[in-house]
């Protein structure tokens, strides 16, 4: 068997799982199970949020290691589900290594993605229905929807102008949200500044990082858990700093 190829496939699978938003224990477990299904005795897998290291020893006693760095990424649940299903399939009936490679690249390529306008619609719908939860009316919902669309455009297309630094991006988007809701309330669309702003900011809150941080810590991956917890606190701080800009303007007016 070609162990180099097998190692490449398993690292690729781990990388895809991680960049679609899987937890650490899922990545480590999937890769380990896959390698064990191909008859390797004790494969070693180590993962932290931006790096996957896989090391195997071939039956001849020759050790091979591969490391893969993972950049900043979003969340893609559909790809996560498909990779998980593929891993389960490969583990129950391991096909030849070449076939497995084909299946993996077909899965990654064939995973459906929403078009940009659909994602943008999601960014608009969510704030529109969040502002009633915090006590807003119909006009507040419309204002929050406008704000959400603006933030969505900024997140989807603005990375060229505001850079890929997530702290700065969040701060910028939340400043945009608070200034825009201030303007909308001033011209009469929306009654309460607070509900409009909170509805829009809900798009940016670190719910994802917070939930994942706790899952990692409970699963015993303390390093990853702490780094994700730090991420969520930083994001919250960025939201606060950004929205303070809009509030400061209100104070001055």
């Amino acid at each position, binding site marked *: 068997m070609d162990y180099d190829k097998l190692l490449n496939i398993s690292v690729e699978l781990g990388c895809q799982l991680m960049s679609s938003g899987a937890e650490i224990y*899922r990545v480590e477990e999937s890769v380990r199970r896959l390698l064990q299904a191909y008859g390797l005795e004790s494969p070693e897998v180590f993962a932290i949020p931006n790096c996957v290291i896989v090391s195997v020893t071939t039956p001849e006693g020759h050790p091979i290691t591969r490391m893969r760095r993972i950049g900043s990424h979003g*969340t893609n649940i559909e790809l996560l589900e498909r990779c998980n299903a593929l891993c389960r399939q490969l583990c129950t009936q391991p096909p030849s290594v070449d076939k497995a490679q084909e299946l993996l690249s077909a899965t990654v390529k064939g995973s*459906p993605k929403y078009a940009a306008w659909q994602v943008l619609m999601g960014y608009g719908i*969510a704030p529109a229905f969040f502002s009633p939860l915090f006590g807003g009316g119909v006009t507040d919902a419309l204002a929050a929807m406008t704000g959400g669309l603006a933030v969505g455009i900024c997140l989807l297309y603005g990375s060229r102008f505001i850079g890929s630094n997530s702290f700065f991006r969040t701060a910028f988007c939340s400043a945009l949200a608070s200034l825009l809701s201030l303007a909308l309330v001033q011209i009469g669309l929306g009654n309460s500044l607070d509900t409009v702003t909170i509805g829009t900011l809900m798009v940016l809150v670190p719910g994802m990082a917070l*939930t994942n941080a706790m899952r990692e810590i409970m699963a015993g991956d303390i390093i990853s858990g702490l780094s994700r917890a730090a991420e969520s606190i930083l994001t919250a701080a960025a939201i606060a700093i950004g929205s303070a800009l809009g509030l400061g303007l209100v104070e001055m007016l």
Partner: protein
Amino acid sequence: MILIWTDYILPCVCACLACVGFSLVFNIHGMGKLICGVGGALGWLIYLLGGSTIFAAFLASAAIGVYSEVMARIRRCPVTGYLLVALLPLVPGGGIYYAMSYCVAGDVSRFLSTLLHTFGMAAALAVGAMLTSSLFRAAYPYLYRLRSVKR
């Protein structure tokens, strides 16, 4: 009757639709969108019934934890997506905002109390969902065996 409608049903419908909106952002397809929406509505209903306190948030996130574990078992999918999206309406975005507004206004005592309340909410959410998730995982093999014995 009208009270029930405006106080409970309407907010739950809103939470459901907001979660569906978020599931577009996280690229969830098919039945997953509906599951996320119902999970969000369930969580928000329990939060409202519990009186919108920190303990209510804990109960709501515990319910979401069990709900998403069950759904993940039924659909044979990772639990992450459902849990994430259904918890989102409960994440204290309002707390962050109000804490910041008191800070800008220079009201130190209200700033600190809001900040602590926000942290409490976040901790309640995280602990509630994870606790029930882990309990469910521990209990699941027994439940599964019981069910197959009955058959």
